[in-house]
């Protein structure tokens, strides 16, 4: 076989050609990487869609009820977590992350993994006071920082699954997530402003719940609002969606514990 008139088909040239081919394929994949519908300069935190009263409540730590959970989380962190994590700052920016098996591990799931594997204790029940407190404290410690996404996140199966879910029309009202949060944000549905749908403020204190809750709980409330099947808390699609929302937020700073309507 002759590769080229001037060159002998030595293994070195074959290898080089293969390498160049790989690089080209990689470059074209990066060029074609999907981008969020909302451009980076238009990205707005969910807080900007709430009333002035709620924004003031979030900004003032002495009035923000989420700080009660932060106080408790700080105590648990000092007791259970400092052995491995000297500094809580920045931990939450690494989450949600991708596991090697392609599944997504969220902030709460990571805390429970640590709880079982490192603290050698029983995993906290979902939405329990200690789990929410720890998650809120860890997220609070990264306030103002941006989430770090896994490399090539848009090529992951988790991203693809979440993308399909985000754009799939479902429920009695024939909605998909995109219809509101990518296209109609700033408008009103019933008596609420439609936000752009990011998770950067979570775990957040929601006035509707009269308590603090996780992004997992908020996402289930979205499905309920769309009048479609509400996934179980353990459904991996919720974790995939958390990763997808972080991708859509494009470096919007974390602001937990946020106050939401």
């Amino acid at each position: 076989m002759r590769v080229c008139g001037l060159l002998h088909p030595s293994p070195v040239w074959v290898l080089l050609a293969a390498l160049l081919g790989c690089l080209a394929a990689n470059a074209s994949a990066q060029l074609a990487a999907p981008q969020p519908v909302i451009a980076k300069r238009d990205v707005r935190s969910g807080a900007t869609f709430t009333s002035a009263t709620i924004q003031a409540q979030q900004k003032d730590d002495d009035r923000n009820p989420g700080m009660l959970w932060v106080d408790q989380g700080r105590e648990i962190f000092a007791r259970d977590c400092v052995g491995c994590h000297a500094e809580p700052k920045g931990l939450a920016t690494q989450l949600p992350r991708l596991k090697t098996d392609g599944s997504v591990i969220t902030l709460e799931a990571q805390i429970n993994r640590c709880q079982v594997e490192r603290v050698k204790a029983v995993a906290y029940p979902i939405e329990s006071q200690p789990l929410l407190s720890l998650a809120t404290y860890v997220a609070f410690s990264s306030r103002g920082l941006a989430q770090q996404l896994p490399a090539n996140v848009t090529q992951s199966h988790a991203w693809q699954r979440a993308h399909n879910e985000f754009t799939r029309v479902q429920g009695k009202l024939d909605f998909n997530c995109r219809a509101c949060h990518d296209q109609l944000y700033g408008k009103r549905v019933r008596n609420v402003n439609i936000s752009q749908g990011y998770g950067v403020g979570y775990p957040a204190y929601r006035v509707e719940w009269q308590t603090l809750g996780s992004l997992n709980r908020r996402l289930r409330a979205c499905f309920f609002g769309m009048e479609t099947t509400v996934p179980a808390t353990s459904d991996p699609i919720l974790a995939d969606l958390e990763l997808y929302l972080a991708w859509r937020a494009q470096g919007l700073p974390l602001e937990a514990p946020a106050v939401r309507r």
Partner: protein
Amino acid sequence: MSIEPIPGRNARLIVPPLVHAGEEFQVRLLIQHPMETGFRRDVNGELIEINLLESLSLDFEGQPVFTALSMNALTANPYLAFVVAIKQSGSFNARWRDQRGNVGSISASVRVVAS
């Protein structure tokens, strides 16, 4: 699912650390409490028993400053703020009790500096 607050850490009492004698300042109290109205149902459809904060008081060095009777229109995790003026350094102590008999308290001290 029952929510078990960690004892002693379910409130924030916020006061300025230093004030002038006779100067008015704000005391802010944030308490973690579900303020169950008795109208809500749990996941099994059972009514959740009413559980409101029934007494709430704040004193300064044993002297009553503020008392509140809370009813079911008060939000969960209530936030209360009021203005006081003191003549000498001391500590504020807030206590509350709910209808299930749970009690809580928190204190914070203020130092008065010569004006």
